[in-house]
């Protein structure tokens, strides 16, 4: 068999397993996505580009991808110490805090968006404190990013936790015993171990956020050219019964995300190789 089997397993039999995987992915992922591309193909190549290359659509792409990247970065930076703390320290209430991390998964996104908007409008609890500093959160890109940070948090923490659990504290001790500063120990010993998991968390959070609609529309203000996200433009097209135009935006978004995720995967593979 020309296929590369990592390790032949006695369990279900390769053919059955492969058949199962292909069938499942076909039904659940490939057929709906194929439908998307098929419908957008009715526009033709020129029509497809024409639907994309308008100032308004490009601005929306910038908003969607910019805020999703920013939110994933913030989540990466903030999620690492969170995951570290929850794994390495035992204290009363730890399980409760740990469970809280999953809340953004469980909460309907619209609820999250409405709650954040209520808090951060200039008259809201948090908005009132920020207004004198000249910071407006609701109805700006900052607000969109905030909603996405909320939505994406569990991805980073949950990706990191198992790896941190695996990490032997003795390694850090050895590093500092051998004279490394805490920063040196972190940067040269711990980070290389966590890097791939952190990237996984980052890319999951990013992928989730780029398509997020429910929470964002409530806090974005939806102003064309400024705070309008691509999923909203898709809904707008559907509202005009322009199914083909909607699928054009959808497929473009999917491709852009796919390319970004591929790049991240590639980076991750290189990181993994360099640490081994």
């Amino acid at each position, binding site marked *: 068999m020309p296929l590369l089997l990592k390790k032949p397993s006695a369990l279900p039999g390769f053919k059955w397993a492969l058949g199962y995987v292909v069938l499942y992915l076909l039904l659940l992922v490939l057929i*709906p996505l194929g439908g*998307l591309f098929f419908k957008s193909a009715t526009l033709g190549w020129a029509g497809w580009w024409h639907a994309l290359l*308008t*100032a*308004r659509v490009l601005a929306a792409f910038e908003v969607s991808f910019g805020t999703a990247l920013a939110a994933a970065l913030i989540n990466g930076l903030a999620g690492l110490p969170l995951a570290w703390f929850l794994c390495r320290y035992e204290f009363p209430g730890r399980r409760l805090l740990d469970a809280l991390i999953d809340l953004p998964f469980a909460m309907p996104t619209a609820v999250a968006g*409405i709650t954040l*908007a*209520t808090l951060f*409008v*200039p*008259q*809201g609890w948090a908005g009132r404190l920020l207004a004198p500093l000249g910071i407006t959160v609701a*109805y700006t890109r900052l607000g969109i990013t905030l909603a996405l940070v909320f939505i994406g948090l569990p991805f980073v923490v949950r990706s990191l936790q198992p790896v941190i659990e695996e990490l032997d504290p003795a390694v850090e001790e050895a590093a500092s015993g051998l004279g490394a500063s805490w920063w040196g120990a972190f940067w040269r010993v711990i980070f290389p171990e966590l890097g791939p998991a952190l990237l996984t968390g980052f890319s999951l959070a990013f992928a989730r956020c780029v*398509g*997020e*609609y*429910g929470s964002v*529309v*409530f806090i974005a*203000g*939806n*102003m*064309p*050219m400024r705070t309008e996200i691509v*999923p*909203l433009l*898709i*809904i*707008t*097209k*559907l*509202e*005009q*019964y*322009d199914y083909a*135009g*909607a699928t054009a935006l*959808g497929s473009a978004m999917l491709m852009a995300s796919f390319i970004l995720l591929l790049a991240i995967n590639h980076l991750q593979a290189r990181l993994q190789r360099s640490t081994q």
Partner: protein
Amino acid sequence: MKARNRFLQSAVLILALAGASSLAAEGGAAKSIKLLNVSYDPTRELYQDINKAFAAQWKAGHNEDVEISQSHGGSGKQARAVIDGLEADVVTLALAYDIDVIADKAQLLPKDWQKQLPHNSAPYTSTIVFLVRKGNPKGIKDWDDLVKPGVAVISPNPKTSGGARWNYLAAWGYALRQKGGDEATARDFVTRLYKNVPVLDSGARGATTTFVERGIGDVLLAWENEAYLAINELGKDKFEIVVPSVSILAEPPVAVVQKVAEKHGTAKVAKAYLKFLYSEEGQEIAAKNYYRPRLASVREKYKANFAPVKLFTIDEAFGGWTKAQATHFADGGVFDQIYQPAK
């Protein structure tokens, strides 16, 4: 991604409804007729009352139980659900355009559906009014006051909200009707108006929330019935209604989805249901829910609720929905041009 979710949602809903109706058909010993009324957002309360009254009337006349289910959502979204296979016996939507599309794309009802019932198939009407904060601190009296600097107007996005299209067209029609008013002045007026809109919510209820709960904006452009609902639910001490000198006559139409009703064997009761809306009892229920009744006697009885306002129709001012939609709200239309960056 979300679009896929929506598709799945509606697929599940359709399956569930299909399952439910086939179950009902099998257990058909008890004589009970089921109707599905697919409607738009703010009619929830209206049709709850209508359904109860109609069921009682039908039972008295025919000794049959009628069970009417309601489905509510944005008007365009609801029309799409029907096109995609949601088996509505009747549709009661915000704009004739949405029913036109059902007739056009899915051919579920004849193209001249609007001629089948009196008054363009719109048994009740509504209009666009202003909701302002108590005491009217910005002194809003008419459309002109909305474009003054420093006035924040809340109105949803006309690209995603049927109600918002009425708001937009009402403002446009007002500007046309002013001395020396023409396309150019109307366009300028509407552009200045939207410069005063700080947030474009995706739906009418969302805009109401922004204005009422979040305290954003000085004026909310709203359906008359929504404005009354907001006042009744949230207290007369917080808001008041300002009726402009001129506004648009909104005629939310109703229609039997002929092909579906024939398939379900509900054509007769569906037609009676819609005719009931025109009866004295139906008109009174509409008036109580702050929709303007067509019947003169009922209008007279409830005239305290409906301030006099000069109304123009969409056919007079814009040559019908299809044309208005293409000129103003299609991609690249006038509304989009307002937000085009200056070159």
